[in-house]
């Protein structure tokens, strides 16, 4: 395979893995998955901001 084709193959496979696998199966948007409105999201973040982190 020539250099041009190799590079295009790398780009396509990589983009497929990044957007087709990683984004869909491993990187959901946490706030969009768990809350339906921006008000709920803001409320959730504000709740986190008003509590202290502790070691688990």
């Amino acid at each position, binding site marked *: 395979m020539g250099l041009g084709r190799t590079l295009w193959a790398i780009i396509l496979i990589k983009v497929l893995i990044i957007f087709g696998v990683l984004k869909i199966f491993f990187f959901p948007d946490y706030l969009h998955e768990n809350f339906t409105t921006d008000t709920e999201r803001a409320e959730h973040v504000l709740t986190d*901001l008003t509590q202290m982190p502790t070691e688990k």
Partner: protein
Amino acid sequence: MDQLNLTMVNWARAQFALTAMYHWLFVPLTLGLSFLLAFFETLYVKTGKEEWKRITRFWMLLFAINFAIGVATGIILEFQFGTNWSNYSWMVGDIFGAPLAAEGIFAFFLEATFFAVMFFGWERVSKKTHLFATWMVAIGSNLSALWILVANAWMQYPVGMNFNPAKARFEMANFWEVLFSPVAISKFTHATTSSFQLASLFVVGISAWFLLKKRHQNMAKKSIIVASVFGLLSSAFVIFTGDEAAYTNARVQPMKLAAFEGLYDGEAGAGLVAAGIINSKKKPGDNQDPFLFEVKFPGLLSLLANRETGSFVPGINDLVYGNKEHNIMGVSEKIANGKIAIELLSQYKKALKENNPARAEKALANFNNYKEYLGFGYLASPEEATPPVALTFYSFHIMVILGTLFPIIFLLFLFYALKGSIIQKRWLLRLGLFSIPLAYVASQAGWIVAEVGRQPWTIQNLLPVSVARSNLTPGTVQTTFFLFLVLFTILLIAEIRIMLKQIQIGPDFSGMPEDD
């Protein structure tokens, strides 16, 4: 109330660091080599000599390999914001929206449009149009970096914004203040000029290899001259912008400055450590020596931090425990103020829920008096405000030592190349080749100083990493950490193998008199 998980936070930090460091293996070469391509091609258009065209095309091929393998690796960092760092992502959405949109509109499209012309347009457009495209790729790539670095600089020095507690968001108040903050300026100029240095060493190093192998010597010598001049000029800017970055650190992130110098007890006329071994058992507030061994330049740290050799530079102990003589508030007091800010935020939230606007307004007015300490309220102890000192110290000194060595290398290469005796200096050619990995080490070390040195903050003084994260289990983040490790390692191996193969093949001088 669910408990926040710090184990997850540490895995998420490790994952972000891994991804950012791999991503930064590809970026600096793109930033710097794009300008070198523009220089080589300008020489071709000015002189009309076919040889410069072939030289340009050879380096363009290596640029294409680096670009193809590196492209889209940065998008994974944005995925991580939404998944692992959702609180942070939510809070900065309004601030980052503007610079990232600007990147998309002005820089990315500029870069992408002209990329196609640069790579595939040699025989399709006029010489001048092609040259214009190559310059636009260089400018576009560096403009892309500008917006990302502005966003990063804002986290180090959050200016031009207001915190809106009702939305739990930082909102943009002044775009220009964000764009032209001193941290943004020094970060952009230092990151780009050091990338120019890296790319110049890349060209010098590979050309040195050709000279060692006695192949394409004419091309190698010409490339060395152009890259050495660019490298030397870049080095001057790197020193200037590095000095500016340290001066800015002293103003807005004094803890980072103290950490990268291993300075525990502040002093007037503070010395700059030339070389030293950190005492790993040393903790803030104890009586142990910070160093097992050290060599200092007297007064230089004060000069670097304040432009005055006799001035006072606060150390880690001054910043953690306070120093009344120099009017430095200790972290204990900041934590107390931060807890009041959190309590007032809590009262505000409760008042909103109970639909009591009068109480909400009162809580908000009081919160505004304490909001600058908000982040400290989440710290468990004053010592938690200290970043990892040894890692920050060694990274800074590796970066500075290598950054001092590079201009000497450029100067030697330029001198012997112009004198015509570069081929006989085999030690220098070997040093040039070896300087390629050193350039990457220096570049990575710079980012370690910038990012590890500002821990525990995601947003300086306002949001520690422990609160910026999502409520995920460590296992989820561990899985993706190892996925990235495998994916990026494959990409890195691919880059090195393809690059080495293409260098081995060398430039195409077919149809021209042999240059060897």
